[in-house]
C-alpha cells in the first residue's frame, strides 16, 4: 500500500522544527510501523537525503524506546501496543499519517522523533529503588507476601518507562509512570521500609524536572501500552497522604 506521511523534523533543541511530507510506497501490511519507517529511510538515503531519526531497540514491545505520536495518539491507534508492535495492516492504502515526537517540557527533542527521556531516569534515581543489604541468596519464601499484593506489584512493575503517559497528558505529567513505580515498591515488604520517603522525593523530583501535575483526565491510562491503571495514581496519592501525616516536613530539602 501507499501512504502519505507528515513527519516532524527538527535538527536539535534550538531548531524550531516542522512537519515534512513524505511518500511511503509499496508498504506491506505485514510490516511493523518501524519497518515502514525503515523503508522510507532507505529511500531517503538512496536519494542522498537525511534519514528520519527515531528511537527503537528491542522491537518486541518490552524496552520502551520507540516513542512516536501517530495521528495524535502516543503509540498509535492500537490499544496496549507499542509503536514497534503496531502493524501496517491497521492502516489503509492511501492513508495520511502524522508522526510527531513525545511533547513535554521535561522531554526536550534531541532530533526529529527522538526525545531526551532522562528526566524519567532522574525520578527513579531520586527514590525508585529499595536499599537492601546484599548478602547470601535468601531462602525462597523467607519473606511471605500475600498473593493479592504480589499481583498488584507485578501489574505495576509492567511499566516499561516509555513515557507515552507523559506524551498523552494535557499537562505533561508523569503521574502514571511514577505511580507505577511507587505502587510496585510499596506493595512489597522490601520496598515498604522506604515508602514514605520515596513517594515524597519522587513527587518532588517530578516538579523539579518540569512535569505538570495530574488533573485526572486519564489520557495516560488510555495510551499506556502496558495497561498501567490510574488506580495506581490513587495509590500514590494515598501513599503521599500517609507520608505527609507521618512527617509533615516530608520535604527532602534538596
Amino acid at each position, binding site marked *: 500500500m501507499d501512504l502519505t506521511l507528515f513527519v516532524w523534523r527538527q535538527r536539535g533543541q534550538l531548531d524550531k522544527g516542522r512537519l515534512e511530507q513524505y511518500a511511503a510506497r509499496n508498504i506491506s501490511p505485514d510490516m511493523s510501523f518501524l519497518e515502514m519507517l525503515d523503508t522510507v529511510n532507505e529511500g531517503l538515503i538512496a536519494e542522498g537525503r537525511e534519514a528520519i531519526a527515531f528511537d527503537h531497540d528491542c522491537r518486541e514491545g518490552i524496552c520502551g524506546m520507540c516513542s512516536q505520536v501517530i495521528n495524535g495518539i502516543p503509540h498509535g491507534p492500537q490499544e496496549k501496543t507499542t509503536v514497534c508492535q503496531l502493524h501496517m495492516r491497521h492502516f489503509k492504502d492511501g492513508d495520511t499519517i502524522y508522526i510527531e515526537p513525545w*511533547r513535554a517540557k521535561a522531554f526536550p527533542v534531541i532530533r526529529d522523533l527522538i526525545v531526551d527521556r532522562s528526566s524519567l531516569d532522574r525520578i527513579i534515581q531520586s527514590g525508585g529503588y529499595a536499599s537492601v543489604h546484599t548478602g547470601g541468596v535468601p531462602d525462597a519464601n523467607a519473606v511471605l507476601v500475600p498473593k493479592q499484593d504480589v499481583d498488584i506489584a507485578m501489574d505495576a512493575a509492567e511499566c516499561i518507562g516509555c513515557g507515552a503517559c507523559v506524551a498523552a497528558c494535557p499537562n505533561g505529567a508523569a503521574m502514571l509512570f511514577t505511580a507505577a513505580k511507587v505502587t510496585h515498591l510499596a506493595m512489597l515488604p522490601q520496598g515498604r521500609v522506604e515508602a514514605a520517603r520515596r513517594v515524597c522525593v519522587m513527587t518532588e523530583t517530578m516538579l523539579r524536572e518540569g512535569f505538570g501535575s495530574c488533573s485526572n483526565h486519564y489520557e495516560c491510562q488510555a495510551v499506556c501500552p502496558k495497561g498501567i491503571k490510574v488506580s495506581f495514581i490513587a495509590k500514590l496519592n494515598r501513599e*503521599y497522604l500517609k507520608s505527609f501525616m507521618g512527617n509533615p516536613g516530608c520535604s527532602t530539602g534538596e
Partner: protein
Amino acid sequence: MTLIKNMVGRKIVMSITGLALVSFVCIHLLGNISLFSGPDGINAYAKMLHSLGPFLWVVRLIMAAALGLHMVFGILLTLENRTSRAQKYAVNKHLSATVAGKNMIWTGLLIALYLGYHLLHFTGQMIMPEFSSSRNLDALGRPDVFSMVVHSFQHTVVSVVYVTAMAAVGLHLSHGLQSMVQTLGLNNERTLPVMVKVGAAAALVLFLGYAAIPAGIVSRLVGR
C-alpha cells in the same frame, strides 16, 4: 508548607478546598429549595440563618478562605501545567479527557465572576436594591427574602445569568467530583469508573436543583 511545594500536595489542597465548597453548594441548595414552599419556607430559613450570629460569620470566613485557596491554586496549577506542555501537537486526539475536565479554569473563573455578582445581589443587596429583603419586611416582620428572589428572577436576564452560572457549576463538578475522590486517593480499580458516573450524576442533580428556582419563577410556575 511542604504541602504546597509538592505537586501532589497542591492537588490535595485543591481537593479539600473543593470538598468544602461542594459541601456548601449542597447545603445551600437544601436551604434554597425551601422557596418552593412559599414565603413561610424561605423567610423562616433566612431568619434562622441570621439568628446564628457569630457562627454564620465563622462559616463565611471558612468558605472565603477555602475559595481563596482553591482559586489561587487552581490558577497556579493551570499556568504550571500549560508550561509543562507548551508545545502543541499538530494532530491531537483525546481519548478520555472531557470538555468539562479541559475547561476547569474557565468554568471556575466564570463561577468566581458570578459569585461577585451574586453576593452583591442577594447578600449585599446593592444590585436591584428596590427588592432588598432588609428593606421590605413580610407580614410577620421578617426580611422578605421570598419576594426579593421572586421579583429578581422575574427579570428574564437575571434568570438567564443564574442558570448559566449554575451550568458552569454543574460542568465544573461533573469533572471535579470524581477528580476530588481520585486526588484524595479514595479509589481502586473497581470504584473509579463508578465514581466518574456518580460524580457526573451528582453534578447534574445539583444543576437541576439550582436551575429549578429561576426557571420556576421566570416561567411563572412559582411565586404568583
